[in-house]
């Protein structure tokens, strides 16, 4: 089975080469038969990669320690779920998952791309094949997950205990679906550059892919943030760690792409810019893969590192980013510029959005790469952390967030900012009220905190206003309003939901950062502690035994007003004997949208234990808001004009859209 997996991977590599060369050549000489080869090859390539992945997963599930990779990252006593998720809890397996998802997306284009122009489809599959071929070669040459050990060890070395968590089952697959999803946008862009034409069907195809990738990336980042929050025991939800930035940059650029693709689809303007953004977004995904996988950065994600891998990925990076940008520089001038618009218009607002988001991406990029550059040039070692990002990213985001409610209400081509401001009066009043209530009634609220809460309410109420205005609230009879509400395109709801989610996330961040409280103290069994109106009693440490670890559980009783126990919170120190590692399991109690978070420290000789407690108001909204954003993307995807097959109904109107082409 293991050798079958390895063999399937080699076959998949060969097929990826075929998928690159044959359709590309076919499109060049306009040969239908050669172009048609791309589809079935892409599907077969996916099937072979899936077989290979299944072989590795089976080796993990059955604890086949004759495979070096399994021996290194698994143990027979692990629960089955962690045995399976361990498949991608290591460098080799996670690269295989990366390629699996890449070929999956290629197969989707092959399966559902029958309404694409034949040459575009062939070129897209060729570019997708080229990315697949290089990464398959990378796995086969430097990171073979199927290497055997002889003689086979009796027992494995265990999966890193930090990774033995449900988070590993969710975070990497979601993140990769996002990262790699942008490869489709990239392939479409490069294909358009190869052909030298972009038309309406191009935009209609790229937008749903962007939505899908963005939706998964949002989920992946949010899940990673929540995982780090509860697993590491530091109580933070975002550390501006280079690896987090690596996933955040494609998200920022992808968000910009999402918005500029709307302009391109609806108004056929910003074509060249959208194309460039699509290339940049996937380039940032590749850069992220490089930063995380090459070991140039030290982090939780840097599994065993090997310099040849870094050099290999750097070559892939140079090939694809350099190649696509060179192609862009060479061909972009031949694409015609689309419609004109007034600065104050929906297009103008979306351009503003893009300006802020790309600049924000650039600051994150500089902050992430600067330490690497400085070390290469001067051998000084520096670190750029939260203070830098707070000073640069923060000021860039605030004006953007203030502008968000205006965008969807502005008309295309030429908008009336005063009319829009009038419509937003109610939202503004609500935000102002939130500022006043926060400043006057919440103890210790700073001016910044109050304004932050106001900003969040401005976003939330702005999103609701968008829906209300578009269904004619207050200006038409209730019956008509309901009918209009029902008849609104799904994408309008999608926009409103995504912006609402952004508001909720903002509220969660402001609430946690500005109103959170924290205490560190050493406690004996029976001691009580007060934190932001909650009383906790430490009941003591109790030993317990897990399947592959032993732990000391610290039990804490949350006391009600009458002194009775209302809930028990447990935080534990786990010790994994195989890797001789200790981890801390934080204790979390959710109260409304807020959380009481506690984390156990070391036991002193007198039997007391260091305990760190946090009260985190509204913290769950940070991730809840991300879920709402994902729901917004899903809602937009259900829009009738993006549904597969639906474009044919509108072919007439689409055909009327001007298409840019080479002479």
């Amino acid at each position, binding site marked *: 089975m293991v050798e079958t997996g390895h063999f399937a991977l080699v076959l998949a590599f060969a097929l990826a080469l075929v998928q690159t060369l044959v359709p590309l050549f076919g499109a060049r000489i306009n040969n239908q038969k050669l172009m048609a080869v791309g589809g079935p090859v892409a599907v077969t390539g996916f099937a072979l990669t899936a077989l290979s992945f299944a072989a590795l997963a089976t080796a993990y599930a059955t604890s086949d320690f004759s495979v070096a990779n399994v021996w290194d990252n698994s143990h027979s006593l692990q629960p089955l779920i962690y045995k399976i998720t361990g498949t991608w809890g290591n460098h080799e397996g996670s690269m295989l998952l990366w390629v699996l998802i890449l070929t999956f997306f290629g197969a989707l284009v092959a399966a559902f791309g029958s309404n694409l122009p034949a040459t575009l489809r062939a070129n897209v599959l060729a570019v997708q094949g080229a990315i697949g071929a290089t990464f398959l070669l990378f796995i086969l040459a430097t990171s073979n997950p199927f290497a055997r050990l002889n003689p086979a060890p009796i027992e494995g070395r265990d999966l890193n205990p930090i990774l033995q968590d449900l988070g590993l089952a969710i975070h990497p697959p979601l993140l990769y679906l996002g990262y790699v999803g942008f490869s489709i946008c990239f392939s479409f862009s490069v294909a358009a550059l190869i052909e030298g034409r972009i038309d309406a069907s191009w935009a209609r195809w790229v937008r749903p892919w962007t939505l899908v990738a963005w939706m998964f990336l949002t989920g992946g980042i949010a899940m990673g943030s929540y995982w780090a929050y509860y697993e590491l025991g530091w109580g933070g939800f975002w550390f501006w760690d280079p690896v987090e930035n690596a996933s955040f940059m494609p998200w920022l650029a992808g968000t910009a792409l999402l918005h500029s693709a709307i302009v391109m689809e609806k108004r056929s303007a910003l074509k060249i810019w959208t194309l460039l953004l699509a290339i940049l977004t996937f380039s940032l995904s590749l850069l992220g893969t490089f930063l995380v996988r090459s070991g140039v950065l030290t982090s939780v994600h840097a599994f065993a590192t090997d310099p040849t891998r870094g050099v290999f990925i750097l070559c892939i990076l140079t090939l694809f980013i350099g190649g696509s940008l060179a192609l862009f520089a060479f061909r972009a001038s031949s694409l015609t510029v689309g419609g004109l618009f007034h*600065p104050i218009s929906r297009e103008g607002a979306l351009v503003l959005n893009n300006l802020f988001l790309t600049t924000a991406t*650039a600051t994150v990029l500089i902050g992430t790469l*600067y330490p690497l550059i400085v070390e290469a040039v001067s051998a000084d070692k*520096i670190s750029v*952390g939260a203070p830098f990002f707070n000073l640069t990213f923060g000021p860039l985001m605030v004006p953007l967030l203030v502008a968000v409610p205006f965008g969807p209400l502005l008309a295309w081509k030429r908008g009336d900012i005063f009319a829009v401001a009038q419509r937003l009066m109610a939202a503004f009043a609500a935000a102002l009220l939130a500022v006043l209530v926060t400043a006057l009634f919440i103890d210790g609220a700073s001016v910044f905190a109050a304004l932050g809460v106001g900003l969040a309410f401005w976003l939330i109420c702005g999103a609701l206003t968008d829906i209300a205005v578009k269904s004619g609230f207050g200006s038409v009879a209730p019956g008509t309003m309901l009918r209009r509400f029902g008849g609104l395109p799904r994408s309008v709801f999608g926009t409103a939901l995504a912006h609402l989610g952004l508001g909720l996330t903002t509220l969660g961040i402001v609430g946690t950062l500005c109103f959170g409280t924290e205490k560190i103290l050493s406690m004996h069994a029976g001691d009580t502690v007060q934190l932001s109106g909650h009383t906790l009693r430490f009941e003591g440490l109790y030993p317990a035994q897990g399947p592959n670890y032993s732990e000391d559980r610290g039990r804490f009783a949350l006391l009600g007003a009458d002194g009775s126990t209302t809930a028990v919170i447990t935080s534990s120190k786990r010790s994994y004997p195989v890797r001789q590692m200790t*981890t801390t399991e934080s204790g979390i109690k959710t109260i409304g949208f807020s959380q009481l978070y506690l984390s156990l420290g070391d036991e002193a000789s007198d039997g007391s234990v260091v305990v*760190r407690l946090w009260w985190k108001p509204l913290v769950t909204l940070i991730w809840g808001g991300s879920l709402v954003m994902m729901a917004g993307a899903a809602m937009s995807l259900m829009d009738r004009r993006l549904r597969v097959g639906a474009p044919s109904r509108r072919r007439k109107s689409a055909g009327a859209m001007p298409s840019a082409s080479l002479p």
Partner: protein
Amino acid sequence: MTRKQKRLSVIAGGLAFLGAATGLTFYALGQKASYFYMPADLTTASLQPGQRIRLGGLVEKGTIERGQGTTVAFSVTDNQKQVKVTYTGILPDLFREEQGVITEGTFRPDGVFVADSVLAKHDETYMPKEVADGLKAKGVWQESKSE
């Protein structure tokens, strides 16, 4: 305004925005980036009072003092010089004697380093890269401590 003037003002606005963002970024890099030092580097480094730095090295054997309450003191060494560090809070799970560690904070006037964060990595065979490189550069790297 004519069409041309309008377009120029839009472009000028965009450039002013980018200029401001670039200026802010470089100002922030100058102010907020923190340098990494090992104890022996400190004799030659010129530090401003209160400047945040990252101090890395090995936790010296036998120097961990858990006082009353939540403050811990220990020495960070690169086998040439030592620096005394204090930290209030919960130490990372992998913090132990003779292991690589990175602390971040500022020097007190009496020469004690007050750390507000302590990083020890999540893998027992793992040495923070800065610390490993630093020890190698000083010629006191022992292969047994590497992976």
